[in-house]
């Protein structure tokens, strides 16, 4: 027996014919997409809350991905947001600053909330822009005033 053949091979990556939760999740997505079209109701599925065999999460992602939109966030670590090849179905993956996945969601929506500009951030942005504009105006002013006074 060769050395390679003597090493036991353990199948912790379940074979193609032995998965159970991929199809039900895809059906759930289809129903949610129907509802989004009919009523506008959105839905979020937390992939970490469902028992999945090794390789099943990848299979779901492979089946869905990828569509026309791919966005990257840098907020407390990177996040990646894909619209899948099925319009209205988004895959949102959050990483921490060490690049570990801290959340993975399938969102059935027109656009994930996290991509929208947030009210609080816009309020801060207005003040910041105002300050920067007034500082710029101030820095131009003194020379002219000084010349006029002398």
């Amino acid at each position: 027996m060769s050395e390679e053949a003597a090493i036991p091979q353990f199948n912790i990556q379940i074979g193609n014919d032995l998965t159970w939760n991929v199809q039900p999740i895809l059906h759930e997505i289809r129903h949610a997409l129907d509802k989004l079209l009919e009523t506008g109701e959105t839905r979020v599925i937390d992939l970490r809350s469902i028992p999945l065999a090794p390789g099943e999460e990848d299979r779901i992602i492979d089946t869905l991905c990828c569509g026309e939109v791919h966005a990257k966030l840098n907020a407390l670590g990177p996040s990646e947001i894909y619209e899948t090849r099925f319009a209205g179905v988004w895959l949102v993956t959050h990483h921490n600053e060490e690049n570990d996945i801290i959340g993975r969601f399938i969102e059935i929506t027109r656009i994930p909330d996290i991509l929208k500009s947030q009210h609080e951030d816009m309020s801060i942005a207005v003040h910041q822009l105002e300050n920067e504009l007034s500082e710029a105006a101030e820095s131009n002013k003194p020379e002219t005033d000084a010349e006029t006074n002398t």
Partner: protein
Amino acid sequence: MTKDLSRKDRTLGETLRSQGVSRRSFLKFCAATASMMALPPSMIPTIANALEKARRPSVIWLSFQECTGCTESLTRAHTASVESLIFDSISLDYHHTLQAAAGHAAEAAREAAMEENHGKYLVVVDGSIPNGNNGYSTIAGISNYDMLIETAKGAAAIVTVGTCAAFGGIPHAKPNPTGAVSVSDIIKDKPIINVPGCPPIPVVITGVLTHFLTFGTIPDLDNLGRPKTFFGQSIHDRCYRRPFYDKGLFAETFDDEGARQGWCLYKLGCKGPTTYNACATTKWNGGVSFPIEAGHPCIGCSEPNFWDGGGFYKAISIPTENITKTTMYAAAAGVAAGVAIGATGRMKKSAAGKAHQKVTIDDLEK
């Protein structure tokens, strides 16, 4: 001191904004928190509103007869940014493994925190309490028993972290030389949240603290005082190998064809059917894997008396010397097929043992 007090008075939202954390980052944090707490994503806006207004609670962490594995589990957690944000939002006023102060200075910090936050602070306990001779374990000359009684008096609630604090754990195992008992054996007049495990999953520990921080209430508990969110379902029910069990496909030894095919580990002693925990979904090491996924049966570490449960590699319902008792175990576990499987199990195991002369259950039991 004034600076510290003003920091304590801040809400979590104010603390995060002062650190330059945007609302979008905060929403991401809330999404990860909801996932961590096993709450439905529809709760994310509720969590965001509650956390925005939450104030930093004082936490006093008492370590008694323990191995520090529970603290290691928490501090080595992989989801660093979520945990660090949670810990930024509590005031950990006493933890003798982590704090810089020692001896009388450390005890003074505990007493000050108890006085300042009377009726509002959280007590976290890891380790069991020797109740035969209190001298078996003392801190700064104070017995574990006296320190628990004294600290629990002004607590809003107690969180036991690890099986030792929740149920007695390994120190409680026979012959229990120190007379080790759990927190709930001593404290009867305070809400106690048990977070067992040897060690507990780090996100389960932070999930419970976050629940208290977010909602200011005790989560729904099962009959053993464990939060139902994390301990509401058995490992078996959430295990990805469960369909193999349903099909009657079992590994008989650790190196047979069944083991290679990733079949159910029930006959190798898996305690999944009688163990309630979140390992099968939350998993370990940042969601990478859990013992069953790595090919080892669940040892039932989050259940009472797990160390005296009769052998990690003995199947829970294979008839042995006492068929009545074993059948009762099977019934209690709700394993309808267990007895039938058990009846044929020994024969198959014996045959498999002859075919594979490497590591057997018997070797591991020696």
